[in-house]
């Protein structure tokens, strides 16, 4: 028996190790491909975003009319300022539909006081099934604003109510605590001016922690010095600047961030709006939308453009971070399972043959492979089955490749949008790019593995998120 184990065990281990090695090689090669595809697009968008071209768009009537949908639940502290920044965007035609999702604090009262609301009858076309709407309010001072008060039903349910109440052909879904840059909507509308048939457009989300914020505007972009939010800053740059940009040329994006995405309203209504049963409604929505477009043979691309920017706060404690990542991964698993018939299905073109398989192999299964690879490599090196030099070289290659991708993202940021003006911030980004594989990755893998367990347990909860709020501008900054 001992002899038998001795015979097959090293061979099996070497096979497993080589499989993991090839997995890493293929996935990393795909990341490199995304990077190569993203670079020329980034350059193009940087040039298209010239101030004079943007200014002409603003003064023309060409930009599409947009309804901004804002779900809010217990946002009493920040709702007035957040809403004011949304109501003063540089964009000629838009409205803001804010949905108070059964807040138990004084969110609605704050809105009444600040915006002089009056109740109006429910003169909207209800097309989606949602929790009960209690009242609609318009503002006497801001004609752009519509407030809907409803029973608590979650974010997706609130977005569906807002979708029904929206007047305009395009809708922008954003979070109440997301800060949208004044010209972001104008930039987001750029693909429409480029003769493209658009179903959805996504912009970049950046990390606001440690940035200086005044009147709902980021006036000085900084990189947080704390390791968790600092590394997330690099991660966001990597995900948005080349991850999503690369997908534009590979059959379209499957993720438009729920905090900042512009959609054709009629398409969203036709697919019955946001799914209330998922914990990552943004990913599920895009998969369902892309699927619908393919099945119905309707025109419309889902594109990402990098220069419209919205700022969001990221978790600074491991516990909150863990809950967020676990929820994201649980939502990914649920969506992949729900839309499994799309996988490797040529009927869905690039979505079925490239995008969905990528999300299955390189995203959903990544923590399993990574954890398995780590354990087996360490174990086999200790037991002598694997040559230590080989194991070391393997780890070093994986480490350097990850670091290289992060540095490439930082380089792309520098060459294009250059938002971090302080040299110390660039140095911080580089530092975080180098330390990310030590600790942060393993922590992420752990929380993503937990997602599998909770998914199998049938958990649909969001988990409690805690926010710190924005860093206010020093008094002198207001001039």
């Amino acid at each position, binding site marked *: 028996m001992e002899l038998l184990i001795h015979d097959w065990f090293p061979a099996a281990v070497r096979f497993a190790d080589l499989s993991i090695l090839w997995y890493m090689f293929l996935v990393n090669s795909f990341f490199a491909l995304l990077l190569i595809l993203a670079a020329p697009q980034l350059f193009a968008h940087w040039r298209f975003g010239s101030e004079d071209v943007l200014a002409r768009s603003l003064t023309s009537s*060409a930009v599409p009319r947009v309804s901004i949908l804002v779900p809010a639940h217990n946002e009493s502290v920040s709702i007035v300022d957040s809403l004011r920044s949304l109501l003063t965007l540089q964009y000629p035609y838009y409205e803001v539909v804010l949905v108070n999702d059964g807040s138990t604090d004084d969110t609605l009262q704050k809105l009444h006081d600040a915006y002089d609301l009056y109740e109006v*009858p429910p003169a909207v076309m209800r097309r989606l099934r949602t929790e009960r709407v209690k009242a609609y309010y318009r503002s006497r001072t801001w004609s752009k604003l519509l407030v809907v008060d409803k029973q608590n039903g979650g974010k997706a349910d609130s977005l569906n109510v807002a979708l029904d109440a929206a007047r305009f052909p395009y809708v922008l879904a954003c979070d109440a605590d997301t800060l949208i840059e004044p010209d972001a909507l104008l930039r987001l509308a750029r693909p*429409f*001016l480029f003769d493209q048939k658009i179903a959805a457009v996504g912009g970049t989300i950046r990390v606001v922690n440690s940035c200086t914020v005044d009147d709902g505007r980021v006036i000085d972009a900084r990189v947080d010095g704390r390791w968790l939010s600092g590394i997330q800053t690099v991660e966001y740059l990597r995900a948005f600047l080349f991850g999503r940009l690369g997908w534009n040329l590979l059959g379209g994006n499957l993720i438009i961030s729920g905090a900042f995405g512009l959609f054709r309203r009629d398409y969203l209504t036709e697919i019955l709006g946001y799914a209330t049963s998922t914990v990552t409604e943004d990913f599920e929505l895009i998969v369902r939308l892309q699927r619908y477009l393919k099945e119905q043979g309707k025109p419309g691309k889902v594109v990402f453009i990098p220069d419209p920017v919205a700022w969001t706060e990221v978790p600074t404690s491991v516990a909150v971070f863990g809950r967020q990542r676990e929820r994201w991964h649980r939502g990914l698993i649920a969506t992949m399972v729900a839309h499994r018939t799309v996988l490797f299905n040529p009927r869905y073109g690039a979505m079925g043959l490239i995008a969905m398989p990528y999300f299955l192999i390189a995203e959903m299964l990544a923590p399993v492979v990574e954890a398995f690879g780590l354990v087996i490599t360490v174990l086999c090196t200790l037991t002598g089955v694997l040559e230590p030099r080989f194991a070391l070289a393997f780890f070093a*290659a994986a480490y350097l490749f990850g670091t290289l991708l992060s540095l490439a993202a930082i380089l792309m940021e*520098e060459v294009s949008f250059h938002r971090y003006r302080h040299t110390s911030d660039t140095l911080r980004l580089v530092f975080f790019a180098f330390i990310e594989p030590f600790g942060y990755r393993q922590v992420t893998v752990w929380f993503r593995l937990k997602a599998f367990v909770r998914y199998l347990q049938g958990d649909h909860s969001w988990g409690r998120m805690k926010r710190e709020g924005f860093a206010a501008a020093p008094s002198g900054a207001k001039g």
Partner: protein
Amino acid sequence: MTLDTLVVALIVEGTLILACLLGLVVLRVHLAARARAVEAGVRLLEPVLHGWLVENADVHQIVVLLRRLAPGVAFRSVARLATPYLTFQRQQTLAPLLRNETWVREMLRHGQSRMWWRRFDAARLLSIVGGDGDQALIAALLNDRSAAVRLVAIDAAARLGGQLVDIELDGLPQRQDAVQAYQLAALARHPRVVAAALLPRLLSDAPPDSLNAWIDASGALASPEALTRVRELSSHPRAEVRLHVARALRRLAEPETVPVLLALLADADWRVRAQAARALGALRVIQATAALAEAVRDRSWWVRYRAALALAQIGGDAREALLVVTRGEDALARDMSVLVAGLSSAAVIEMSEV
């Protein structure tokens, strides 16, 4: 996969990482220097432009100043300031003076470059300094393979008008809505030339898609000649065309327009009725009050909405009529009229516009 392969990968990765780090340093220095140069150019140009606009200072000062700057800096400074500072008429004065400057000629030579971004910059510059001699180049840029170049070339074409108008009008129906609207806004800078070019196109037997685009163009121009011709198309057999007619007629304030719009308010297609109601509101047609009050009871949500807004926009007796509906028995009409009656005047105007 062997150890040797991994070692090769490590060497390649290490080299690329070093290249990235080096690139970051170089870029930081280079970009900072370029940004400083452009900022300095803008700072120099801004007061001179301002002096010309406000105090009628000598326009040649601008030309002399730009000549002193590096071509790239001069271009970026002008591009940055031209749109917010200069009206179309002011640009028409400045353009011939700049057109033959060496730095301008140098940049415009890139109009036929194989690199799209050079053609893009050339089109941007042509939209500020283009002259009659550039018509052929602009015509080519209007059909460029890059959508961004085509978009900016629309502004360049708008500067010149002339035969470029025909090219633009013929290309209009093929554009997406947003690009059409952009092009219409640009064409509106030459109302007479464009109106003259539109008249022979506004025929009921023209292809419907093209006809719709040209009707929209007539509306954007607000040209009485073109809109009078549009009014004659109000009984076109296609609802889509009647919809565009109703929308365009809100720019033609003539007594003859009223019966046409009232007829369109009774159209079988709800989209036409909604646009007719909107036009009657925009033209403040008091005698349409009864018809609009009736339209607030329409089965279509959009017609009710547009009719209620129109009554609020007309004001006076029409607003009273809207208040009467708020107390009526038709629940849908009541809801809509209560919604609109509560709006401020500014909100009514804003909501009627979009």
